[in-house]
């Protein structure tokens, strides 16, 4: 076969990676979230692998399917498909259905790990350190965050992309096979614990509900009572409530937010919530 031995050049892989690094969300819409970012990252590869227009069109059509995942960790999926596309150009064993089945199968697990690891763990931890450094108006923390996050983000995404390319469909086994399951469970433990830490450190739901006796002296400060049972009880309760509404009652996040608006209004009217702010 004349196609045998095609290999994507390092230069093209770099180009593909940078297209993804930059453009995965630029043309975001609710209908096709990262689809166009995916198309632009696959284009250099498709153009290099296939000389004639027809083959290029056939290959590109594969990537018109909806795509959305956590973009940082999701680089690995783009890398895997680059490797699969190379395999398809060489022997044709790989087809549309294989590639799209794999993409669809990986989107969910990668989004789950990525969101809890990158957005739920890594970013709050770096931000937490940076906030301490910027206390009192020093630019140091902001600069620290810019440097650390971008180095980790860029090289982490690069590593994921090239690892995906190197492993190809073997990566799928690692990501969703027995070892993958063990890794995901381990990461979910870290994610769960750190998200708990983030919630306790940065999310504060407080009630101002107080009962006073005749002389105006408070004899029941509800917040103190709740905290003596379990510090942060009210915060944790609200988080579990939101989780329950979304996970068990299948209510969309937007509707949960609207419910919270109503809860807040009722809470403010009854004196349960009072942020105690003034201009």
């Amino acid at each position, binding site marked *: 076969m004349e196609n045998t031995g095609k290999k994507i050049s390092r230069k093209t892989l770099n180009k593909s990676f940078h297209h993804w690094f930059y453009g995965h969300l630029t043309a*975001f819409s609710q209908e096709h979230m990262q689809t166009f970012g995916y198309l632009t990252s696959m284009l250099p590869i498709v153009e290099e692998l296939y000389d004639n227009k027809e083959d290029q069109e056939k290959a590109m059509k594969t990537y018109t399917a909806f795509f959305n995942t956590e973009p940082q960790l999701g680089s690995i999926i783009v890398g895997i498909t680059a490797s699969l596309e190379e395999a398809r150009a060489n022997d044709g064993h790989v087809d549309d259905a294989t590639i799209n089945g794999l993409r669809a199968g990986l989107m969910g697990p990668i989004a789950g790990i990525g969101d809890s690891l990158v957005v739920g763990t890594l970013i709050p931890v770096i931000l937490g350190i940076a906030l301490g450094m910027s206390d009192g108006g020093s630019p140091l923390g902001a600069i620290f965050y810019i440097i650390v996050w971008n180095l980790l983000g860029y090289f982490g995404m690069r590593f994921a992309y090239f690892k995906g390319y190197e492993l190809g469909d073997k990566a799928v086994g690692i990501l969703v096979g027995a070892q993958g399951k*063990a890794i995901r469970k381990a990461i979910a433990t870290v994610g769960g614990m750190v998200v708990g830490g983030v919630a306790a450190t940065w999310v504060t739901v407080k009630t101002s509900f107080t009962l006073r006796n005749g002389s105006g002296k408070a004899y029941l400060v509800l917040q103190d009572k709740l905290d003596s049972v379990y510090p942060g009880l009210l915060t944790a309760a609200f988080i579990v409530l939101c989780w329950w509404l979304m996970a068990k009652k299948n209510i969309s996040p937007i509707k949960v937010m609207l419910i919270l608006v109503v809860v807040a209004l009722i809470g403010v009217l009854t004196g349960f919530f009072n942020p105690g702010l003034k201009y």
Partner: protein
Amino acid sequence: MTISWLQASILGIFASLSSMPGMAGSTIGNYTLGRPLVGGLVCGLILGDLKMGIAAGVAMQLVYIALVTPGGTVSADVRAVSYIGIPLAMVAIHSQGLAATSANAADLAKSMGTLVGTVGTVLFYGTATMNLVWQHMGWRAVERGEFRKLYAVDWGYPWISHLIFSFIPTVLMTHFGSSAVQALKTALPMDGIPMKTLFTVGALLPCVGIAILLKQIVDGPVDFIPFFVGFTFAASLKLNLVSVTVVSLIFAMISYKLDMAINTNRQAAPANTGGTVDDEEDEDI
């Protein structure tokens, strides 16, 4: 303190770069320029009061540190928080004569950020909706095999969405900000029901973000245990986040080793049961 057209325009460009579908990409745009802490640095430099910018940024970052936008669901828009909210807060703090790093200034910044951030979700959905037009052009290009046009669709045309939903709103709101801040203060007094509600909502919204994250790792009550252990470490034992992360690693290691040991045991089992085990493993995929 006033914001000139030039300063407002620079803020407008930064607003276009940041936010979830921002024009600087999500790593540099959303997760760097969009963070209020970084926004505080940028706004401080543009408006010529670095210390106040950072202080306002720190205050707002505290509200939005747990802001998660999974699957394109936003509870607050970071471009609005960072490049409309922070400049307006700076103007307000300045006009009130508050010290940049005082608690009152931080509260003012928080309420301004929450207000602008929540209202700013309109900008997010506006941008995303307008991008449908460019995507439509993209699909036609794909049909005709003119793939090079996809670059313009992905990197070029969305600038127009941002011109309308990031640049112009930012320029207008920050330039006319000082009067707007005054008008807002009269229209929505801080001890009135609307502002109290809004700020309470602002405090509750991060719960949704956290819950969305949990939805992906928690299926039943048992899966809540790591979350509550982490919560307890921070809330009761007052560990900071780095310490919580370090402690969590040991649990992750145990979990991984245990699972791998179980897997190895299963593989060592007789071949006739091996097949069914594999089938079981595949079910989760």
